[in-house]
């Protein structure tokens, strides 16, 4: 039993979908469980932090960590797991790029806390009570983790060997990664365990993508009847395919929905949102200011569209309007 490679699984700031994606392996999970020894998986098994602390450094063959890092507890845990693991795999969009929780980097910490605990329409909190990091109870002190100012990707706080992209990663990619791990056939450290080509390469609608696009109006998916055969960009629907890594088998496009970018960029792109912005703008219509802005206004939320999964991993990381530092004007 102890000869089998040890595997850990942990979640940070994420929705839980990555944890469930393990079950997407279906009966394949039985082969995985037979081949490895799961030593840590809080959502499913009863191992404690102390069990991990007692293990020798580097003794876990690989730990799959999903979720972005926002609290001091998450930071502590991923540092501990880093120390105990030979390889750390950033599992899913949030660990890789910040994910949906990373969109919180549009706001300052104080704005978030004020909204959540005081201003949200569903909150009744006349006394304006906020959670405190410490609280005395019966002579003892209870503590809460601190809530960081920024959402961070996993590799912004610890070194990461591999990335399994996706929201969540597909069973095929997970199975391939586990297989490679068991066979010692993993690629060079730093690799994303998915093809290094854009999604368009494997898109079933690829042949219907015109040579040149002149998009004169963008449509949100719910507001238009989408032709199930034609390239989505040719129909004016923002599809992140050109700036997004493939390997997902184009599941969203096959479901007649545009790619929203969860696999992140290929290795040749440093900033997925900026690259997609470049492509969208170049392929839209208009040669004069008014005509151009008219077309581009039909993309209501550029930031949330272009960086839906990757704001913390972007070149700017977060909104720069933090009030305590600069004279930037909020527009």
């Amino acid at each position: 039993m102890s000869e089998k490679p040890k595997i850990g699984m942990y979640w940070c700031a994420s929705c839980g979908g990555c944890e469930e994606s393990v079950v997407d392996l279906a009966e394949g999970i039985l082969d995985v469980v037979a081949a490895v020894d799961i030593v840590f998986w809080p959502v499913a098994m009863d191992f404690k932090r102390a069990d991990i602390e007692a293990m020798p450094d580097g003794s876990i063959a690989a730990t799959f960590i999903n979720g972005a890092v926002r609290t001091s507890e998450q930071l502590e845990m991923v540092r501990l797991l880093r120390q105990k693991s030979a390889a750390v795999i950033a599992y899913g969009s949030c660990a890789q790029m910040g994910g949906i929780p990373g969109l919180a980097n549009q706001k300052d910490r104080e704005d978030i806390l004020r909204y959540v605990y005081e201003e949200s329409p569903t909150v009744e909190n006349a006394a304006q009570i906020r959670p405190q990091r410490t609280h005395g109870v019966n002579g003892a002190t209870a503590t809460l983790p601190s809530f960081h100012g920024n959402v961070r990707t996993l590799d912004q706080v610890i070194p990461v060997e591999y990335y399994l992209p996706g929201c969540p990663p597909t069973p095929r990619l997970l199975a391939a990664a586990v297989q490679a791990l068991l066979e010692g056939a993993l690629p060079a450290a730093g690799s994303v365990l998915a093809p290094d080509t854009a999604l368009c390469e494997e898109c079933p609608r690829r042949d219907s993508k015109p040579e040149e696009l002149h998009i004169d109006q963008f449509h949100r998916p719910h507001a238009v009847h989408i032709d199930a055969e034609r390239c989505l960009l040719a129909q004016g629907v923002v599809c992140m395919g050109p700036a997004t890594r493939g390997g997902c088998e184009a599941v969203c496009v096959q479901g007649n929905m545009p790619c929203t970018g969860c696999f992140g960029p290929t290795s040749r792109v440093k900033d997925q949102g900026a690259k997609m912005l470049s492509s969208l703008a170049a392929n839209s219509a208009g040669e004069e200011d008014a005509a151009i802005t008219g077309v581009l206004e039909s993309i209501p939320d550029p930031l949330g569209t272009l960086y839906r999964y990757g704001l913390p991993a972007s070149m700017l990381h977060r909104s720069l309007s933090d009030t305590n530092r600069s004279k930037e004007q909020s527009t």
Partner: protein
Amino acid sequence: MNMQQPNSGEDAAWRPRIVAFFCNWCTYTAADLAGVSRMKYAPNTRIVRVMCSGRIDPQFVLDAFRHGADGVLIGGCHPGDCHYSEGNYKALRRYHLLRRLLADMGVAEQRFRLEWISASEGDKVKSVIDQMVAQLQELGPLDLPGRRADWDAELGENGEDDLTAGIAAEAAEEVSHV
């Protein structure tokens, strides 16, 4: 590109730094003309020559900010004059969308500018750069490298997590108040 600032720390010594992407056929030639005509203009601009304003990837703009630029200026041929017929229209569309994105990111609009400057408009190079420097001087440093260091202070010094120590200290304080 080394964007280290020799006089960082002293606001009095701070001078805005602009990264300018000028197209080879019009604006770069205009900057050259401004030089040969011995026009005096603010020395705060680092000019990068590109073949066409349509070559300017929005990643270049963000990368300049990331490395410490306080402003980014794009210069290209007037509409209708592009050497490659429509590169400047692509640049203009990218500029409009990137402007909106930068506004959403809390970057003041004066920090990102696009100007059409033909090869004969050396004086416009001077006036645009002088004006942009004055605006940035007013706005103060963007200082993304400095901000990143500030943001990461919460991760603890030397990679050590001092948050636990912080909680312990606060806890001790709280208990002493009880």
